[in-house]
């Protein structure tokens, strides 16, 4: 049995806490009042989901790896090469496993879309368009939203991206709340990414972000809009939407089970993380 703790209170943590159904070989040990370091170093836990932003999130991942745990993190667990190396060292020394998981690549619609793009019937991918929009608010879209988009792109396109262009700005009062990114792969696939915290409160599902993905191939086109996995609550004074990410989070948990079984595919996390980090670093550099 895998004992899984939760650090943080982001959407993934909320989804797991609210799941309320058996998780197979995983036993949830939720202690939301405990300090993150206590959970990370708890020797009775074999795995943790870290859903904590910023430096504390990185420190929690590092501590959990040092104590030998399997760790589910967001898609960009390290911001720098040095931090990535520290995670790698901690993994080797502590015998832990890091599973960087993007919600986008683990969600049902996107997983099916990636499978369809990989199918020979799709033909050659010629262009990929990803828009991730969220309600207006603070933060930097290159930090908050780009990792999800890059994780999907890297899952769909095996090439490097020698050309990276960014047009970004603070358009809605945020720090850097909007960006249009153009990537060109070494095999001439053009990727357009639109990231924005631009959605006004009056949209029909306030509080909920949206994703649009259009992949155009020589034989097929695939449009993915994984926006409907939410409960919309309408009241006299307004409405909001609460996403349920069961499919994505459960897919992440299946990776934990694979890791516990020692299956070799999880060993590729460092390569994937390094690739994601390289693309994100190029995007940040192009943004100036």
């Amino acid at each position, binding site marked *: 049995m895998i004992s899984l703790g939760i650090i943080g209170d982001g959407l993934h943590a909320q989804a797991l806490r609210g799941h309320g159904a058996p998780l197979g070989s995983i036993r949830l040990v939720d202690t939301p009042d405990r300090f993150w370091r206590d959970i990370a170093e708890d020797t009775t836990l074999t795995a943790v989901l870290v859903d904590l932003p910023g430096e504390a999130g990185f420190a929690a991942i590092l501590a959990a790896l040092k104590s030998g745990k399997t760790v589910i993190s967001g898609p960009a667990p390290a911001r720098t090469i040095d931090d990535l190396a520290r995670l790698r060292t901690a993994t080797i020394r502590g015998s832990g496993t890091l599973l960087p998981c993007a919600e986008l690549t683990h969600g049902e619609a996107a997983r099916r879309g990636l499978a369809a793009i990989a199918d020979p019937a799709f033909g050659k991918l*010629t*262009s990929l*368009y990803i*828009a991730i929009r969220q309600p207006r608010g603070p933060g930097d879209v290159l930090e908050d939203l780009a990792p999800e988009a890059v994780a999907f792109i890297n899952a769909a396109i095996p090439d490097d991206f020698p*050309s990276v*262009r960014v*047009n*970004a*700005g603070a*358009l*809605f009062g945020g720090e850097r709340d*909007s960006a*249009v990114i*153009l990537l*060109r792969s070494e095999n*001439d696939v*053009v990727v*357009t990414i*639109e990231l*924005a915290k*631009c*959605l*006004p*409160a*009056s*949209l*029909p599902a306030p509080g909920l972000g949206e994703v649009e993905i*259009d992949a*155009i191939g*020589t*034989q*097929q*086109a695939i*449009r993915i*809009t994984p926006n409907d996995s939410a409960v919309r609550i309408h009241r006299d004074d307004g409405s909001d939407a609460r996403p349920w990410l069961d499919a994505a989070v459960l897919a992440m948990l299946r990776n934990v089970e694979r890791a516990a079984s020692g299956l070799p595919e999880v060993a590729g996390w460092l390569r994937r993380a390094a690739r994601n980090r390289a693309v994100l670093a190029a995007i940040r550099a192009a943004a100036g």
Partner: protein
Amino acid sequence: MDRMGIGLIGCGGIARSAHLPAIAALREHVDLRATADVDAHAAEVAAAPWGAAHSTDHRTVLARPDIAAVIVATPEYLHAEQVSAAAAAGKHVLCEKPLARTLAEADRMIDACAAAGVHLLIGHSRRFTRRYMEIRAAIERGEIGEVRLLRENERRSRGRPQIWWSPAHWTGNPQISGGAPMINAIHETDLLRWFSGQEAESVQAEINVTIAENPGVIDFISLTVRFKGGAIGSAEVLNNTPLGYPAFHQLDIYGTSGAIRARDHDLTGLARFTDAGTEYPAQYEMLLHNLPAYARELAELVDAIRQDRPLVMPPSEARAALAITLAAIRSAHEGRAIEMGELA
């Protein structure tokens, strides 16, 4: 009132699908009196329902004193010569977009028309669609505040069979075709500027050739524009979706106090989100290439001539869209952002 004599130069696809139906729709106001096309049969077929003269030489159209205005529906490499000749002959002009291949050509055309005292209306037909007219009016009324972020994608299906972008069609001839940036994306650069109400500051773009039959003409472009007022616009324009792909246009506009979306995917022509709530004011035409838009476009020229008033879209607007498009092409070739000042 006497019907205004109209000439048609260029009787190919856009003339058949847009301008001839528009002339027919305005038959109480205009009369097609002469046509010209290098393809004699095409000129004859276009002229036949009207009993109009037809020729393979556009100069025979321009020489007629009973024609007040001409529609120039030829590829862009012919515009400078034909529009300048029309102006010299004292004819008002409705010219298909793009205005020209270069800013120098554009300036020559604009100057020629100004010197002759004739109108020059460039066929940015999207501006005459109800869907986009309504959006522009909503922005002008301040319903979403100041425009900050815009996205207008245009995704067109490949042909079955593939005629456009093939060597057998002028669009697929690298010597004369400006490709998707000039044929398609000129609409998007115009709309981004029109809806933002701001002048472009810089442009970045990537281009591609994606259609197997295409001998090398650009059939894909993804571009992003930074405007002087701080707004950011983007457009992905392509021509290779399968026939089953459900949409051509995806327009999103986010302002400081609301948003407007008009996405073909949604199967509702226009949705408007403001602080007051959500409105679906009407079901507008799904296909923006539609008869009412081209009829309104031609009516604008006819009315401006008869009322001796300025056009709602002066040619300087089309020149600005052309400048953004040319900057995008240059950005893609040079792999860097192009400041608009570099094009001066």
